[in-house]
């Protein structure tokens, strides 16, 4: 059974393997947060345009 330390070391390639996985996770995380924020900001309630549209 592999120990957590061995898992993180990745046979000496930890920097390359985790550098890849971490960068991908961070970039996808940024996209998810940004796209949800964009949708929220685009909703009429956020724009304060309900009154104008329904008047």
């Amino acid at each position, binding site marked *: 059974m592999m120990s957590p330390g061995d898992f993180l070391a990745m046979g000496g390639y930890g920097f*390359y393997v985790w550098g890849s996985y971490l960068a991908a996770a961070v970039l996808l995380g940024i996209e998810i947060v940004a*796209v949800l924020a964009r*949708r929220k900001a685009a909703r009429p309630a956020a724009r304060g*345009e309900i009154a104008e*549209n*329904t008047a």
Partner: protein
Amino acid sequence: MASTLNWFKYASPASFYSLARKLAPWFAAFAALCAVIGLSLGLVLAPTDAQQGEAYRIIFIHVPAAWMSMFIYLVLAFWSAVSLVFNTRLSAMMGQALAPTGALFTLIALWTGALWGKPTWGTYWAWDARMTSELILLFLYLGYMALRNAIDDPRRADRASALLALVGAVNVPIIYFSVTWWNTLHQGASVSLTAAPRMAWIMLSGMLVMALAAWLYTIAMSLIRIQAIILEREYRATWIGQLELA
């Protein structure tokens, strides 16, 4: 059209908005599920590679990201062609919704490729045909988005960016076939439909499940982004004003 499903119904931004809103959480949930399965296969269950040791595990991100970077561009070019020919708003919005995710996967493919290149080839970067054409793909995505943002009139932005996307589509077969047309540092195709897989089945299945996760993720992200784009572009429409009241 009562007896058949009317697909043209969803060519209207208003009805596509509610469809996208219903579907997006499902695609996101299945993407997360596939990512968990794919990561378990790739990081835990797949054995160490005889030649590359553990460094090969970068494949489970690198190959799905590289596939998506090319595939999203082809879909972007398809919707650009549809929007130029039929002058439909929704198809242009589709392209607009896909481009950022495509750029992101291109960046991930380049980044993970560099981190894989160093331990296996001894260099982070080489100006070989595969890597250079993938870098050009990133610039095409960024150019597409920058061109859109530079033009104030959305309909003119649609046409200009669609044209750019179509011209740039030439680059996709160049990326894909670069490893056979030129003598590249990058290796040949990892998976072929005609040849038996050269990988252990558990490595292959991990890679394919991660590719499926990337697919579902892309669909989820573009379905959420297109809702934002529809709201941003159609905000004068009465149905949008009624959204919050319903």
